[in-house]
């Protein structure tokens, strides 16, 4: 007899649980849909400001950047993503100085660990929010970040901009 009860209670309990499931899906049938219509929504699509799209070197309106070519970012990088080329020159006072000639960044091998931006003592590099980075040829992922004809800003900026590394990293830079 007990067995019979199990049979019927199992049957009705089962049917009831199925009906609860059906009710749930039917309710969701009429809720707002969550699909994002990309690329139609490109204009409204806003990435968060901390999103790491690709490494960039911001230039000001005079085509000046903040990179002095010290190569700390290159040393910090675990993947050899960054190649900094620099040269020595003599300035007006006859002092030997170093300047950046070419800053090469390979997006294809970057793992966005932020060690380079944290290592930079001048806040010269940062990540931007671009995310449409697909290209057909791997070679096009290698980017030169300093713009042609650009040079380092005349007065080296001592104060650091907001997104760059915290105070702790100043020590690392000086080493």
């Amino acid at each position, binding site marked *: 007899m007990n067995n019979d009860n199990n049979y019927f209670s199992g049957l009705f309990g089962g049917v009831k649980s199925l009906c609860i*499931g*059906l009710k749930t*899906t039917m309710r969701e049938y009429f809720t*707002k*849909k*969550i*699909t994002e*219509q990309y690329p139609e929504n490109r204009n409204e699509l806003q990435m968060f400001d901390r999103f790491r799209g690709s490494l960039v070197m911001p230039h000001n309106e005079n085509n000046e950047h903040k990179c002095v070519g010290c190569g700390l970012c290159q040393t910090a990088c675990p993947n050899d993503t960054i190649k900094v080329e620099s040269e020595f020159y003599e300035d007006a006072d006859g002092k030997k100085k170093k300047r950046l000639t070419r800053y090469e960044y390979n997006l294809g091998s970057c793992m966005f660990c932020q060690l380079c931006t944290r290592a930079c003592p001048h806040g010269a590099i940062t990540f931007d929010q671009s995310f449409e980075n697909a290209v057909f040829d791997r070679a096009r992922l290698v980017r030169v970040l300093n713009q042609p004809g650009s040079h380092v800003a005349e007065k080296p900026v001592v104060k650091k901009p907001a997104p760059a590394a915290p105070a702790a990293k100043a020590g690392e830079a000086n080493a």
Partner: protein
Amino acid sequence: MFNFQDITTWIHGMLTGTLGLPEWAAILTESIGVALAVITLYAVFAIFLIYMERKVCAFFQCRLGPMRVGPWGTLQVFSDVFKMLTKEIINLRQTDRFLHNMAPFLVVTASMLTFACLPWNKGAHIIDFNVGVFFFLAVSSLGVVGILLAGWSSNNKYSLIGAMRSGAQIISYELSIGMTMLTMICLTGTMSFSEICADQAVNGWNIFRGHLPAVLAFIIYLIAGNAECNRGPFDLPESESELTAGYHTEYSGMHFGYYYLAEYLNLFICAGMAATIFLGGWAPLTIAGLDGFNEVMAYIPGFVWFIGKAIFVVFLLMWLRWTFPRLRIDQILSLEWKYLVPISMFNLVLMALVVAYGLHF
């Protein structure tokens, strides 16, 4: 009420009278025309159902579904079909080439034959004779041969397991389908689909007329029909998380396309049969006493009624599919043998009593 027989009689008259064809030639021409019409309808319905499934499923899942090709993604299925037509059919080494190629055609043939059994409108039955129900059951079970052959000839362990599961499942559930059909035949007293429909047009839909046993039979039919179509939650012959694609793992291009087509058409056939047997086929909804309403309903042509009812059932089946997880093979079999078969036997007896004592409406 629109009667399709008027059109067929007129066509026949034109062929024999106006064109002066002999009787055999007229019938031959008509047969070819009907066959073409069936195939076209078959493709059109498959495309429509695939689109419907994708949209309905998306809406259950808080998504929008296809939106990119054509307005609201309406051309998506056409592009998919086109893609499938252009894909290479890959011949595998160490398989039984002949059986491997034949299997999808068997499946598609079986489903087309059953498709032809559907009563579309008053006077629009392609295959209709006095034991139509038997014919329907017989040809619908041909498909399982195709599935078993596909599994066997693919020389793939996944395919073989999938096919064996499918065989066990379809053969078991055939029993429930037969039993529920028998229950309804008990009520209508005929095995011809056209007469079942005509009867319901006069006496009201079977599901209302037969009340409790008919509703029970309807539910059992939906469950068993879903299992016959190998659709979720009974899709374990092709359960992708276990057997990748089950019996059609090794098929590509249009050979796979045939399975895909047959799956959706079987869904429609299952729904159409439910509409025929339980929901009155092409018979309009009539409510006793509301003559004005009944008259308006009667103006809607029968095929609209039929297709509308079938799509309603299709929606029910999709709702089931997109809510439940998949069953395990032993659960599928115990559901059939421990629950559905005893209940439908009991239901058959109940219906017999109802009919014998005239307790129906």
